[in-house]
């Protein structure tokens, strides 16, 4: 009994190692991975990485330009911009990761059921998804925040919901072709339940593409989160967010560092996630040779 189990695991490990190797060989993918890992590291170990207390007020350095003590300058209360950017990374990483994970799970399950059962279920589900896709992402997120109220968790839920239709459509499209393949028919002939066929046989075949899609959506999710925070509809003060810091920066135009550095953090992180997504897509594309 153990031999088939080993055989089943071995190829997936090989696929993972091959993807990792190809990703590291992909120039932009490698840069994307390194920068994303750096942001995630800063977010995870923020208390140890931050040079100052992000809430610490220095009355003698209010709106101080970047200098040796405060590398990226200080804000209107004399708080260190760099430390606040690092703490803001915590918020952004959490929101983006959880929102995309939620959309990944919900969208995949909806797409799986819709594609597998077909018929009326598929028709109804896909029309609902089409309707949601008709909304510009930020506008739908605004509508959801309008209902739930502006705060961090609600912003995360809104970003998750706006991303569900994309995942559902992708998975559904893949399921439509996979459900007719021989191994699915064989599982059905052997008496496997619908749930087992969907989760054990079809889902593993589509998950690779969904991971790539998730990494590409992460960049958009980050920008949506920053936009909501910028508009004052994300995490509320005193929690520092990159978007929120920029909104404050708009009241102090002469202190250009308040407007430049948090934006640079958003831009570089979003760019890195795009590179990572592109790299992952190429690394997982079986048509591309090593």
């Amino acid at each position, binding site marked *: 009994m153990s031999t088939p189990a080993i055989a089943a695991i071995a190829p997936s490990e090989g696929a993972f190692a091959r993807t990792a190797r190809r990703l590291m060989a992909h120039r932009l993918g490698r840069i994307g991975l390194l920068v994303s890992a750096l942001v995630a590291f800063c977010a995870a170990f923020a208390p140890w990485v931050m040079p100052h207390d992000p809430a610490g007020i220095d009355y003698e350095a209010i709106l101080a330009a970047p200098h040796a003590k405060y590398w990226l300058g200080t804000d209107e209360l004399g708080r260190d911009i760099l430390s606040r950017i690092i703490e803001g990374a915590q918020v952004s990483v959490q929101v983006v990761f959880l929102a995309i994970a939620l959309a990944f799970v919900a969208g995949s399950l909806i797409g799986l059921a819709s594609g597998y059962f077909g018929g009326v279920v598929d028709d109804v589900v896909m029309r609902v998804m089409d309707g949601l896709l008709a909304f510009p*992402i930020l506008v739908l997120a605004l509508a959801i925040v309008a209902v739930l109220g502006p705060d961090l968790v609600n912003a995360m839920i809104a970003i998750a919901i706006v991303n569900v239709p994309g995942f559902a459509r992708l998975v559904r499209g893949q399921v439509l072709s996979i459900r007719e393949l021989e191994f699915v028919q064989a599982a059905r002939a052997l008496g496997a339940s619908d749930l087992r066929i969907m989760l054990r046989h079809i889902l593993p075949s589509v998950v690779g593409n969904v991971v790539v899609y998730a990494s590409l959506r992460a960049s958009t999710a980050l920008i949506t989160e920053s936009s909501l925070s*910028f508009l004052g509809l994300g995490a509320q003060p005193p929690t520092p967010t990159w978007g929120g810091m920029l909104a404050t920066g708009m009241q102090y135009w002469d202190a250009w560092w308040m407007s430049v550095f948090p934006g640079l953090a958003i831009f570089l992180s979003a760019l890195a996630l795009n590179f990572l997504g592109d790299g992952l897509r190429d690394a997982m594309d079986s048509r591309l040779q090593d």
Partner: protein
Amino acid sequence: MHRYVLKRLVHLVPVLFVVSVVVFSITLLLPGDPTLAILGEQASQAERLALREKMGLDRPVLVQYATWLGQALAGDLGRSLRTQEAVSEMLAARMPVTLQLTLGAIVLAVVVGVPLGILAALRRNSWIDMLCSAVAMSGVALPYFWTGMLLIILFSLVLRWLPPSGYVPLLQDPVGNLKLMILPTLTVGAAMSALVMRQTRTAMLQVLSQDFIRTARAKGVSEARVVLRHALRNALIPVITVIGLQTGALVGGAVVTETVFGMPGLGRMVVEGIFERDFAAVQGAILVIVAGVLAVNLATDLCYAALDRRIKL
């Protein structure tokens, strides 16, 4: 062509239905008593009851939806809960701002993106191509509001060439309007220019390698004519699709850009409506925005069909 238009319109019906349900649900899904959410904790029982009756919340949900939809279709989107102004009038005042901003951004994207995309394709792997690719990749990662802020710092505060914010209607003061619209249009148009450039480059490269281009060259057609008449016409099809598909993102960009530049557009109306708990205004603005995006998507499909004769009309 009529059949194709009809088919596309029929496809729109379920989408519009879902959109209407979602927009209608904004007040329905407010946690707890919507009147409490709208009037605030300090509202008296009598005030809340009056609002419940005014909003028709005492009636069954389906009746509420049918009433709301019927009124919306007739152009009656209710009254602002804050100012009592008709939402349709608020929309009429704000729509030109958002329209001018998004149309300007599309024009900018085409005027900048298409020529640069052609140039990048013709000078493949040159420094121009590399620069265009780098700009295109960066463009999609730029948050609109940050682009706007950087433009204000550069052009308004450092160079002092343009005003940083505000809005005057085009007909009231055309010069002032254009001055005020330059930076917001650049803000929204920059990311789209990058996308259009990338798409034009890819499409041109594909088209330029096809047999009919080789035939045209072999017949002695001038290079300019080959590129502009034969290749560009075909390359424009995916470019138009990108513009159509990106309209939603463009409107999303307009929402934050209007906030950065203090412009009284539809996006600002949504954001202000959320803060002021003016849900009638939020509903109306969102409905109009989504209807606009759907209309542009439909127009894109029709342009696509008109340009590509392989699509059966």
